[in-house]
């Protein structure tokens, strides 16, 4: 526990030093939501129809783009090696990294979601479903991403390959997340999908750090 706190503090100070970088996923999601009306026209009805989907995809893409940063810096300066040789279990190290990563990349995007919803004329009935599904979904995406990102560590400039590897893994999250918002829009029960995602989250909270630890060891050998 003591070591977990030390890890959290270190990762937080590191993120704090590069806090300008932390704004990037937020800006990216914002820009995607600006691109869409520019491409499809600014008719409120048409935008409202696809608003939830666009916001979900913007979140997904932003999450894919920052995935490489999870381990890259520690790998390059040798700290990852040292962490592997520390008395802390590797899954604990990964859990702390993913937690800080989520707080600094996914949470800001989550916080501006109401703004994005306004920009795209999202119907008010869909907003709670959107926020809740994004909350659970973004955590799921961070955890799944942690497993996949570990595998590409040894490869230089692996950003695109990583995105291609992670995308099929994100499909269920996207389907259930965006699907729940669509159901809410139709007046159908939508919490079921969220519960399903939360069950997945509970499972991954335990499994993903362990799987990511195995993946890291494979990648570093």
């Amino acid at each position, binding site marked *: 526990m003591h070591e977990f706190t030390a890890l959290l503090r270190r990762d937080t100070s590191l993120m704090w030093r590069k806090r300008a970088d932390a704004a990037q996923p937020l800006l990216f999601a914002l820009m995607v939501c600006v691109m869409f009306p520019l491409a499809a026209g600014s008719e409120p009805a048409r935008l409202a129809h696809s608003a939830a989907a666009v916001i979900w995809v913007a979140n997904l893409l932003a999450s894919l783009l920052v995935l490489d940063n999870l381990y890259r810096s520690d790998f390059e300066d040798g700290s990852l090696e040292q962490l592997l040789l520390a008395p802390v279990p590797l899954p604990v190290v990964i859990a702390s990294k993913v937690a800080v990563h989520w707080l600094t990349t996914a949470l800001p995007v989550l916080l501006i979601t109401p703004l994005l919803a306004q920009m795209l004329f999202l119907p008010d009935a869909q907003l709670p479903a959107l926020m809740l599904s994004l909350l659970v979904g973004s955590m799921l995406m961070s955890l799944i991403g942690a497993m996949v990102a570990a595998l590409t560590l*040894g490869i230089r400039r692996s950003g695109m390959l990583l995105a291609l*590897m992670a995308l*099929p893994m994100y499909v269920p999250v996207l*389907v259930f997340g965006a699907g729940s918002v669509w159901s809410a829009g139709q007046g159908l029960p939508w919490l079921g999908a969220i519960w399903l995602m939360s069950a997945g989250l509970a499972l991954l909270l335990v499994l993903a750090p362990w799987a990511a630890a195995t*993946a890291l060891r494979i*990648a570093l050998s």
Partner: protein
Amino acid sequence: MNSIVLWFNQTGSPPRFDAFAARWTSVCFLIATVLLAIGVYAALAVVPADYKQGESFRILYIHVPAAWMSLMIFVIMALQSAIALIWRIKLCELIAMASAPIGALFTAVTLISGAVWGKPTWGTWWTWDPRLTSELVLLFLYLGVIGLYSAIDDRRAAARAAGFLAIIGVVNVPIVHFAVTWWNTLHQGETIRLIGPSKMDGSMLWPLLVLVAATKFWYLGSVLLRTRALNLQQESRKQWAIERYGVQS
């Protein structure tokens, strides 16, 4: 039991496997070709036309075996990778990596035959049918594994990393299928099911089974051939390879 384990142990050594593959590859391909010929002829000429869909349903005889193979190969790939990761058996890594392109091709055949089926039946080249959509995600998973394997320099580390991705992928496949089926029912009315309930008359069923067997033998022949090639590539500097095939530059 002991003799089976012994056989596996022995065949698992690179030189023995090379001899084994050399001998059995052509046999498998021969059986596959014969079965394919019988099956395709039966599917096209012998089986009566479907009362609902007419002649175009015959594409099912290619589509269904290919779909089954695409899933089976992914599971085999994940299984072989798991064995390779736990017990560090070189040959299992190679079998897993050799299976990936074969599986990807079967998935592509499934998708193309599905599209070809959709055109005369519903007028579009693509339908967001849950099965086809799951197959598409499966194709991306295969391509991810192939891409990762080719991106890492150290061949064994590459096989281990790609194998691990396959293991995560195999857990993902049923989840994707479940998600996409749910998604399909959610947006009901906007998509159509490609394959109805699978109740086929006996006279229409047997060519399907023949073709299923044919694809299995095709896979066996292919995987033996590809694994043999990967094996030789990896072991090209070893004594036994030089004795058998000469020095490769």
